[in-house]
């Protein structure tokens, strides 16, 4: 018996099925290409539950790739304190390696859960709230010193949120770059370099949680280390 004989001759239906298969393969290839470029992350949907010990830092085996573009280095560096605290990758917009395993995805999900932005609508609401807060800095009754103190904290949070959005596929890396570049533009008016940015970041964190910035302070030292994202003290150009 040969069941394939019932397929009959080449028919429009059969050609349609083949065309659909090819379209699915092309779309899959396109998605993989985007993920390889870091323009998209692995998404946070359907993550397998952990079984047993889960490492807190998975970066030992992840290859580090230097970021050549100065603007990209600046924009990626803005979320660095949160990225370091979460044990994620500094040099990828999607925060995790391309085609990463479930352990990386679980890590991402834990960070998103901590911020309450696992679902797309929560993420959008959080991004809108931060955009409004940043807008309020420019239009509110704050003096210059206060603006200089609060902006790094808000921009760093916004940068982390956008990158979580890229990782979760709520937005593309290109769109995240554009939105973050606009938010980061006023930083240069108040802060000359990463050192000044870091000091203001810590001062704002200390104001939010007095006496609770020990871990952040320790992580910041790592950022200034020779292999850290803030090793080049001046703003990247």
């Amino acid at each position: 018996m040969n069941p394939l004989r019932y397929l009959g001759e080449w028919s429009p239906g059969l050609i349609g099925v083949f065309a659909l298969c090819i379209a699915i393969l092309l779309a899959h290839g396109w998605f993989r290409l985007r993920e390889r470029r870091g323009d998209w992350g692995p998404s946070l949907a359907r993550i397998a539950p952990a079984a047993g010990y889960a490492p807190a830092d998975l970066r030992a085996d992840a290859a580090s790739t230097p970021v050549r573009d100065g603007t990209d280095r600046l924009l990626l560096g803005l979320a660095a304190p949160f990225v370091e605290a979460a044990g994620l990758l500094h040099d990828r917009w999607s925060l995790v390696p391309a085609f990463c395993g479930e352990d990386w995805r679980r890590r991402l999900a834990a960070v998103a859960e901590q911020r309450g932005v696992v679902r797309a609508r929560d993420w959008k609401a959080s991004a809108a709230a931060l955009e409004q807060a940043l807008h309020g800095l420019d239009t509110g009754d704050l003096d210059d010193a206060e603006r200089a103190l609060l902006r790094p904290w808000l921009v760093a949070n916004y940068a982390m949120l956008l990158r979580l959005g890229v990782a979760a596929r709520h937005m593309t890396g290109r769109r995240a770059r554009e939105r973050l570049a606009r938010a980061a533009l006023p930083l240069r008016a108040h802060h000359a370099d990463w050192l000044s940015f870091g000091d203001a970041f810590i001062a704002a964190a200390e104001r939010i949680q007095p006496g609770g910035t020990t871990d952040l302070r320790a992580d910041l030292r790592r950022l200034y280390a020779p292999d850290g994202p803030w090793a080049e003290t001046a703003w990247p150009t």
Partner: protein
Amino acid sequence: MVVSVALAQADEPLGERIGPFIFWPLLAFFVALAAWALVRRHRGGTGGRGENGVDWTLPESYADHHRVAWSDDPATFTPESRHWPLAVAAIFGICTGDPWDRLTFRDLDNPRDGLREAWGITSRPQLLSRLHWILREGHRVDFAGEVESWIAFGDDALDDLLAGAGRPPSEGDREQLWRLRQVRANARGIREVRFEAWDLVRAAMLTRAGLSLGWLSEPEAIDTLNLLSAELQRHYTGWEEMGEHFLRARWYWGGNSGLASLQEDAHDASRQAALLDPERGPWAQVPWRRPIPHSRGLLVDAMVAEDLTVQTPITSPTPLAEVIDEVTIARLADRS
């Protein structure tokens, strides 16, 4: 030639041309593949047996892994004050195969990889800040708090909570639901567990690893070990009790059921037996009741000197946090 044959046969149906010899083997292959994947998924891998056929759900399978290494001869061993905290750190130390009775590890790959992978620690400031956290509050504040509040709900309220829980939306919720179930059932007597052992034993391990990697000086490490040792001595009456509370707290933190839990239980039972072994076990050789030197707060000095502590936290959630915060206030006052 092939093309002309194909064209000549073009009036035959496609299925006939492909032939029956391709279809059935392919179908059999895919069915076998699907069956294999299903079986593997349901069994959870190798059913507890490792690649070499060892059943890791049995404590005796870990006998080689938990062979206690000594730098001195255990037959002529005389316990000194430095051995008490080392016996605490031995809970983790004996798994590495390094001698338990030396302050530093010989093989530095284990502590380096362990601190990086499990804690995200790659520098002295990070080690100091994580040590500060685990000594002040660690997991014990949250765990003890949640157990206490769930007990206060009463069993009927917990049953209602569990009945209406549904499918947890996230990993964190899944773990919390698992813990709630264990507290409701009082599994492993979790309602009576004192979680200090879980935090302070890990602190001892961090301290020993930090000294080995050169991120703590020897006085800083010994002083920190003294600080946590005195606290452990205050909370427990002996090595075995401390070990039991550590194991139950570790189980509660891990939140594992099924095969993973069976393997962890077997590993832990084997380790506890090795630590208490009358001939080579550190807990059998070092007396529990032994004076611990008073801590001078060198960890706090290091934190202040490194600019990691610039302000005293608003609350001190544990007795040890009160001690540390008191020293911090004094040091910050000296500095200003």
